[in-house]
C-alpha cells in the first residue's frame, strides 16, 4: 500500500509500486484530467506538479511520488490566471494535451513572472499539441503573466 498526497488530500492506494503515477491518478484516484499520450515522457500530456515542479507522471513510479505534494489539473485553482487565460484565448481544440500544457505553464510562471516569447517556447517545447494550438498557448501564457508580453 502507498500513501499519495494529491491536491492536498492523502490517498491510500493498492498498486504495484512500479506503476507509473499517471495510471494511479487516472485509474485509482479517478483524476482523469491528467492524460496519457506517449508513456515515454515525450509529449507532456501527463504533466503534473510534484513538490512544485512540473514532472511527467508517466515517468515516475508511484512509490517515488509517495510523501510528496502532487498537484494535478483538478487541484489547480479554478480562478488560476492560467485557466482564466486559457479560456479567454480559446486555446483548446480537441483538448487532450491542454491539462498538461497548463501544468507546464504553471511551472514556468512560478519561476518567471514575465516570460518572453523565447522563454515560453523554451519552457513549453516538450508539450506536444497535434491540433496546433501553440500560437494560442503563447498568447494565453502572456495574458496570464499580466499583459500582452509581446517582447522578443
Amino acid at each position, binding site marked *: 500500500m502507498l500513501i499519495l498526497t494529491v491536491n492536498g488530500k492523502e490517498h491510500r492506494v493498492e*498498486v*504495484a509500486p*512500479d*506503476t*507509473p503515477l499517471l*495510471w494511479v491518478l*487516472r*485509474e*485509482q484516484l*479517478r*483524476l*482523469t*484530467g*491528467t*492524460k*496519457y*499520450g*506517449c*508513456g*515515454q515522457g*515525450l*509529449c507532456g*500530456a501527463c504533466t503534473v506538479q510534484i513538490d512544485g515542479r512540473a514532472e511527467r507522471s508517466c515517468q515516475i513510479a508511484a512509490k517515488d511520488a509517495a510523501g510528496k505534494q502532487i498537484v*494535478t*489539473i*483538478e487541484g489547480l485553482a*479554478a480562478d488560476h490566471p492560467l*485557466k482564466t487565460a*486559457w*479560456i479567454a484565448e*480559446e*486555446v*483548446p*481544440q*480537441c*483538448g*487532450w*494535451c*491542454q*491539462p498538461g500544457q*497548463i501544468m507546464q505553464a504553471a511551472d514556468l510562471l512560478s519561476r518567471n513572472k514575465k516570460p518572453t516569447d523565447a522563454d*515560453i*517556447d*523554451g519552457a*513549453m*517545447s*516538450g*508539450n*506536444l*499539441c*497535434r*491540433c*496546433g*494550438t*501553440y*500560437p*494560442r*498557448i*503563447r498568447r494565453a501564457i502572456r495574458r496570464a503573466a499580466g499583459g500582452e508580453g509581446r517582447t522578443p
Partner: protein
Amino acid sequence: MNGPVDLARRGFLKTGASLGAGLVIAFCLPLGGRAARAAEASGANPLPGIEPNAWLRIAPSGQVTILVAKSEMGQGVYTSMPMLIAEELEADWSRIRVEAAPVAPVYNHLIFGMQATGGSTSVATSWEQLRTVGAAARLMLVAAAAQQWQVPVSECLAEQGEVRHPPSGRRLGYGELAPTAENLPVPTPIRLKDPKDFRLIGRPLPRLDTPEKVDGSGRFGLDVTLPRMLTAVVARAPVFGGRVKSVQAEKARATPGVRVVAEVPTGVAVAADDFWTALKGREALAIEWDEGAGALLSSDGLRLRFAELAQQPGAVARRDGTPEEALAGAPRRLEAEYEVPFLAHATMEPLNCVVDLREEACDVWTGTQFQTADRDAAAAAAGLKPEQVRVHTMLLGGGFGRRANPHSDFVREAVQVAKAVKAPVKVVWTREDDMRGGYYRPLWYDRLAAGLDAAGRPVAWTHRIVGQSIMDGTLFASSIKNGIDPTSVEGAADLPYAIPNVMVELHSPKLAVPVQWWRSVGHSHTGFVVESFLDELASAAGEDPFFFRRRLLAGHPRHLGVLELAAKRAGWGEPLPKGQGRGIAVHASFGSFVAQVAEASVATDGRIRVHRVVCAVDCGRVVNPDTVKAQMEGGIVFGLSAALFGAVTLADGRVQQGNFDDYPILRIDETPQIEVHIVESTEKPTGVGEPGVPPIAAAVGNAVFAATGLRLRRLPMTREEVGAAKKTV
C-alpha cells in the same frame, strides 16, 4: 457536458425510442411522425431530420440542451452546431448546453447517409437543417404563448429564450412554454432568417467545450470507467496481415492482477485490473506469428515499384486537349518526380474503446467519427442486432480521420475482446500500438511533365499519380469509377490553372498496408505536388510565382481572392531578412479556398525554419470566425509536421516508428507566427477542418526554393533531403 454519461444517455435513449413518452420535464416536440409527414407533404422542408424532438430539450428552468450528432474532435462542432439551432430558436446563448447524440437515423449525415463526422462537412450539411430545427421549435413556442394569452401569433415575438407580447407587456420563458408547445402542430412553411438579422452566426462566440477542457473534467473515451471493468491491451501482429501461430501465455496469466489472456482475431488480448498490469502481462507473452506476405514490404521497395508504375500509362482521370502532342511540341519541357510517405494520424489521445457486452445488449463508449458503422460492426462482432447496441460518443482527443474507420477496427476488436473477457472492458492502445496500427495516409509517387511555349506560358501538363486507393475494400468502394478513386486524384484532376492540354492519370496498386483518410485526404498530397510543380513552371518561365498563378487563375475568382489577400497581407515582394525566402501556394478543397505565404530559411546544418505563415481563407459564410481561424492555425501546424518531419516507413514489413521520438510532430518552438485572414462572403458555408493543410508544404518548399534555389520534391523536408537536394544542384 459529458457529466454522468451512463445514466443520462441511457435515460434519453429510452425516451428517445418512444419519442416523447416519459420525457416529463423535457421539451419534446412531436415532430417525428405526424408533423414531419405534414411538412414533407407541403414540400416546405425537404430536408430530412427536421425533428426538434431529436435535437433539443428545454427544461422548466429554461435551459436548452442541444444534441449534437457530429463528433467533437477539436474542430468546434459542439459550438457551431448549437449556434445554428440557437440562432433561429432565439435562444439565450448563456443557457445552452450540449450533449452527444445517440445513434439514430435522424442524426445521419445528409450526404454520407450514416452518422459520421468528416470531410469538413459538418457546417455545410447542417447549415439549413439545424437552422430549420431551431426555427420550427421557435414557431411552436410562440404559438404556445399566443394560445395561452389568447392573442394572435403575429403580436408575439421570441427573443433571448422567452416569448413576449409587447402590446400587453406579458412574457413567458421557453421553460414555461415547453409543455404546451410540445402538443402543438408544427406551423409550415418554416422561413429562415435573413442573414442580416443574425445575432449569433458570424460572431466569435466562445466555445462551449472550452471550460471542461481547461479544468480537466471533459470526458474522453479513455476517461470512461465502469463497475467491474477490466483494462486490456492486445498483442497484435508485427506485420500487416500476420496471424498468431502459437502462443505461450503461462507467464502472462501468472502476472498478479492479470485476469484473462485470450486469443482474439487481431492477436492476443491481456485483460487485467489496471493498464500497467495488462501491459506487464502482454510483455510476458511469447507469441509465434505467421507473418505472411506482409513481411516482404519495405518502403524502399515500394518506392521502386511505384516509380516503375509511374512510367506506364494509368487510368485517365482527366484529359483536356492533346497533352502528349502539346508536350512533345513544346519548346521548353520540364519533368519531375515527387514523393510523399505513409503518415500516421497520431492523435494525442491514443485509440481506445470501452465495451459492456451483455446477453442481449451492448454498450460502447468511444471517441468515434463513425457512429453508425461502429454500431453495426459492434453488433456483428457481438452477434447482436444493431438496435441492441448503443454507441456513446465521447470527446475525441483528436480524430483527423483515424476515428472514422470504415472497418471499425478499434471498436470491432474491443467487442471481440469483451466477448473473450466476459466482463466490461476498456481496450487501450499504447502510443506504439496506435502508431503501428496502420490505416495511414498512403505513400504516393507522382511523375509530372509540363511544356511551356516560347513566351513562358504553360501549354501542357501531365500528372501521373501512383498510390493505394483508400476507398477500395470499404463501404465506399462504389465511389471508384473507371479505375479512379476520386480521393486519389482530388486536388490534381481539378487543376484550376488555364492550361489548354492536361492529363491526369492514376495507378492504384493493392498492398497489405491499411490506408485511410488523413486530414485533407487526397489533397494532403496533391496540394504539395501540384503547387510545387507549378512553382517550378513559374521559375522556368522566369516569372514571379504569385503573378504567374494570378494570370493562370483569371477565371477563378475565389482562388484569386485568397491568393491576392494572402500575398497582400504577407507583403509579397517586400524585402526579407537575408537568407529567408517567401513561397506561395493556393489550393481549393472541401468547397473552400486557401492561399498561404510562408517565409522560411535553411540553416547551415540543413534544418528548415519556418518564420511566418500568412493564410487567407474563403469558406463562404462564416458561422464562427474564431473557429475558422483556429482551424487554419491548426491545419498549418498539422501540415508543417508532415512537411518537415512526418514519415511512417516499413522495413521487413515492420513499421519503423513507434512514438514521438521517431515520429516527431511540430513543437511550439518550431511554430511560426501565423496570421489568418478570412474573405467576407455570402456564399454557402464550406469546410474549414481540412482545407488549411494542403497548401502549407508547397508554400514552405517554394519558400525554401526562393531562399536557396533548392527544389525539394520529397517529403518530409528533413536535413537529409536538403542535403540530397544540394548534391543534385
